């Protein structure tokens, strides 16, 4: 059994007590300690800024041309916090409970409670930084409701909340760069982790401008490299989002937690053709006022929506989940859309879409109110589809959006490799088997501003006597050579197929067999297919150009090679989990379409240990203990 190092004591007191018992590093010693932070999204950006403020020597890395580009920027809807400014009965406990329940009872109680506790500090911090949250006429902060919750606890900045929070963290980070506390390395991608004597001691990064490999020492390394949704090729992730840093860590001893837990978001713009490069999310906040429906009769599917009479429409979420209606959580709403389309009642050219209709909201509130709330989202939709959602209902379909799984971490956010941490979407910790809307921003900033900067001190306090290790140390040279060999190999194959060919093939296998619905037979087949893809990739990929130059195709090839290996692990994990929970829906385990959990056998985190590329990974279990919440069937009816 894995030890998650959850502090003793009552749930409400664990974090407070833990904080006061964590070892401290005095200011003079902090200056002697190097911390490497990989990734500059909400988690990495806020962590690097905060560690810099505390006085550590920080080096921060991103593959984009500026920390401000990280994909947290694309989050639209909002950020949850248990402020109870609306006086509608919200509390830390309710946010905690909603998150555990939303995650289908597969998250760690202590982590989630801590998240709910610090949620309130995040809002204070961001407002002080000048994040322009939406306000009411009295000048106070506005809130709205979001999927999976019955209170209004979501703070937002139009439809650009992620952007504004990220720019807040970016500002704080740039301030530390200007003060000389943080050094930033843009267009640098971490391609290997370096362990010495069992501890994480540095990284190898590829300078994406000239292709040179650079070595960096750190007393600790923090991975804030986001999720791995791009394993499906099509997802709402940015084109560059990748699993490489987490995957290198996995292959160097960091266990990977619940890799099969992926979130398929219900409201995305449907696919139009094979050239499609990515999918665009329409914020979940649209479900506050939009009503989801499909025709009751198959023969109506090709009719114009305005020609379908009210009584011939099936508002299936309102029908199936009357108490939450259109605000049912993401996994449930996605699966319901898939069922409607599988039933032959999908709309649009492909039949893989459902309507999200604002006609009622426009009648009730007026066009101007709807425009004030969702104007930029409507514009975005019109840009993409050339259709006006004020007149025509939107067409939406589920798409891969977020990965709840990730690098396994203990309560201190440390992985199974001492000195290696994982924060934000890159870790597995807080969302269980399904993440609620507006909780990703909350977790990224909680980890980066308020959790890691404390907990990392516990480890670094014992490192103050460790002198910086030269990057000429054999471990660094060995890691550098491994990377060199890998790139030279990729360039020298000169096969017939492009990197994207392989990526699309992998994505299709993942979507068909490890997507919204999974079964044993399909997963076993997928595993064989992925092994085959890996073999062909390494013998038939064609990467143009050279190693020592700017070469995005080579960068992509390295990422896809890692996605292929990850894909297999996801399938192994999905096969192991003989139950349905949250986003993991095994068709063998259901009660009339609703997920059927198996708490007796699977109330654990599956943490996988790498055991060689052709060998089965080793399963370690972290038992989930529910001492404060009664395990219940997750009902939104």
């Amino acid at each position, binding site marked *: 059994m894995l030890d998650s190092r959850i502090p003793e004591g009552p749930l409400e007191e664990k974090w407070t007590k833990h904080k006061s018992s964590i070892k401290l590093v005095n200011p003079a010693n902090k200056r002697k300690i190097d911390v490497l932070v990989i990734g500059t999204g909400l988690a990495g950006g806020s962590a690097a*800024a905060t560690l810099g403020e505390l006085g550590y020597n920080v080096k921060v890395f991103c593959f*984009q*041309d*500026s920390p*401000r*580009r990280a*994909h947290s*920027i*694309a989050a639209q809807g909002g950020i949850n916090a248990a*402020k109870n*400014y609306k006086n509608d009965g919200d509390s830390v406990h309710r946010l905690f409970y909603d998150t555990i329940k939303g995650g289908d009872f597969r998250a760690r109680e202590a982590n989630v409670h801590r998240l709910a506790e610090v949620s309130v*500090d995040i*809002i*204070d*911090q*961001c*407002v*002080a*930084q*000048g994040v*322009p949250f*939406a*306000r009411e006429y009295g*000048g*106070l*902060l506005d809130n709205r409701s979001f999927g999976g919750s019955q209170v209004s606890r979501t703070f937002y*900045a139009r439809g*650009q909340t992620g*952007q*504004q929070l990220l*720019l807040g963290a*970016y*500002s*704080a980070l*740039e*301030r530390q*760069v*200007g003060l000389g506390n943080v050094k930033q390395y*843009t267009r640098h991608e971490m391609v290997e982790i370096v362990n010495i004597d069992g501890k994480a001691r540095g990284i190898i990064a590829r300078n994406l*401008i000239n292709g040179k490999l650079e070595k960096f020492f750190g007393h600790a390394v923090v991975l804030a490299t986001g999720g791995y949704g791009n394993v499906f090729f099509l997802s709402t992730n*940015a*084109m*560059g989002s990748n699993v490489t840093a987490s995957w290198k860590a996995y292959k160097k001893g960091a266990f990977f937690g619940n890799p099969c837990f992926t979130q398929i978001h219900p409201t995305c713009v449907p696919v139009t*053709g094979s*050239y*499609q*490069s990515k999918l*665009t999310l329409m914020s979940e906040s649209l479900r506050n006022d939009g009503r989801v429906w499909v025709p009751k009769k198959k023969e109506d599917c090709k009719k114009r929506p305005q020609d379908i009479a009210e009584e011939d429409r099936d508002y299936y979420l309102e029908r199936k989940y009357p108490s939450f209606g259109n605000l049912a959580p993401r996994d449930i709403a996605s699966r319901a859309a898939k069922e409607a389309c599988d039933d032959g009642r999908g709309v649009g050219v492909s039949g893989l879409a459902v309507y999200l209709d604002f006609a009622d909201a426009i009648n009730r509130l007026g066009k101007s109110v709807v425009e004030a709330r969702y104007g930029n989202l409507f514009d*975005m939709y019109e*840009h*993409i589809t*050339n259709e006006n959602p004020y007149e025509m209902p939107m067409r939406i379909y589920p798409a891969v959006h977020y990965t709840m799984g990730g690098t396994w971490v203990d309560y201190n956010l440390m992985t199974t490799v001492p000195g290696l941490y994982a924060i934000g979407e890159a870790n597995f910790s807080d969302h269980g088997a399904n993440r609620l809307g507006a909780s990703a921003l909350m977790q990224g900033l909680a980890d980066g501003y*308020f959790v890691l900067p404390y907990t990392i001190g516990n480890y670094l306090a014992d490192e103050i006597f460790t002198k910086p290790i030269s990057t000429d140390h054999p471990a660094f040279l060995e890691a550098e050579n491994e990377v060199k060999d890998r790139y030279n190999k990729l360039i020298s194959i000169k096969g017939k197929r492009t990197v*994207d060919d392989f990526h699309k093939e992998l994505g299709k296998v993942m979507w068909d067999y490890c997507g919204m619905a999974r079964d044993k037979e399909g997963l076993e087949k997928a595993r064989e297919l992925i092994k085959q893809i890996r073999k062909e990739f390494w013998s038939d990929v064609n990467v*143009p*150009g050279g190693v020592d*130059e*700017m070469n*995005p*195709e080579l960068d992509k090839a390295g990422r896809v090679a890692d996605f292929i290996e990850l894909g297999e692990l996801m399938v192994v994990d999905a096969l192991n989990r003989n139950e349905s929970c949250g986003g993991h829906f095994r068709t063998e385990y259901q009660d009339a379409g609703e997920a059927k959990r198996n708490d007796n056998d699977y109330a654990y985190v599956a943490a996988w240990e790498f055991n060689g590329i052709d060998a089965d990974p080793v399963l370690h279990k972290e038992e989930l203990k529910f001492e404060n919440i009664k395990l219940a069937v997750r009902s939104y009816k």
Partner: protein
Amino acid sequence: MKFTLKIWRQKNTNTAGKFVDYQISDVNSDMSFLEMMDVLNDELVRKGEEPVVFDHDCREGICGMCSMYINGRAHGPKRATTTCQLYMRNFSDGETITIEPWRASSFPVLRDLSVDRSSFDNIIQAGGFISVNTGQAQDANSTPVNKEDADLSMDAAACIGCGACVAACKNASAMLFVSAKVSQFALLPQGQSERSERVLAMVNTMEEEGFGSCTNTGACEAECPKEISISNIARLNRDFLAASIMK
């Protein structure tokens, strides 16, 4: 649809570049501009040629990474749109499309259509922040902010830092970018204590980075994908003047 693409190719910062013509056919009008570029690159790789390097990431018009100068306009022909949100239906069948990188000495070309915009980070480092360490904040509702000011601040904060304003300006001035950040904070009570220092530091750094002067042509506003208003430049000028006199 079919197109002739005239694309700027340049090996690296230190070598000279040139336009190269490519033909592309079977383009679907629902393809995004960057998907059309993906298809071109796919064809180039299959032919054993090097694909065109261009910056892109979110493809949702929000990260600010994409940066193409298309037919003489930053982010192409459509108003209030980033390159990644352009669709081929915005072009006419058979058209010749000229694609260049941002042209500004403060944005050196790295390769083909990719430029180095770290000068923008340097400007933010000089003062594009409110100095508040993590943990120092008071309750978020303790300072009410007039809704109109909050909305104006949000309008300015919508800047994605893509650099289209610089590319569009005949002087390669970064005034719209700098004024958006200055305005975002100048409009909020939290931003008041550093208001003077901020505007002086950011404008000085902008000049040190080699950006040109603003001559009020308004080209930046016209090409800005987020429709940032040049009234922000007026606000910056007022603040800059006041701060200079007080210094």
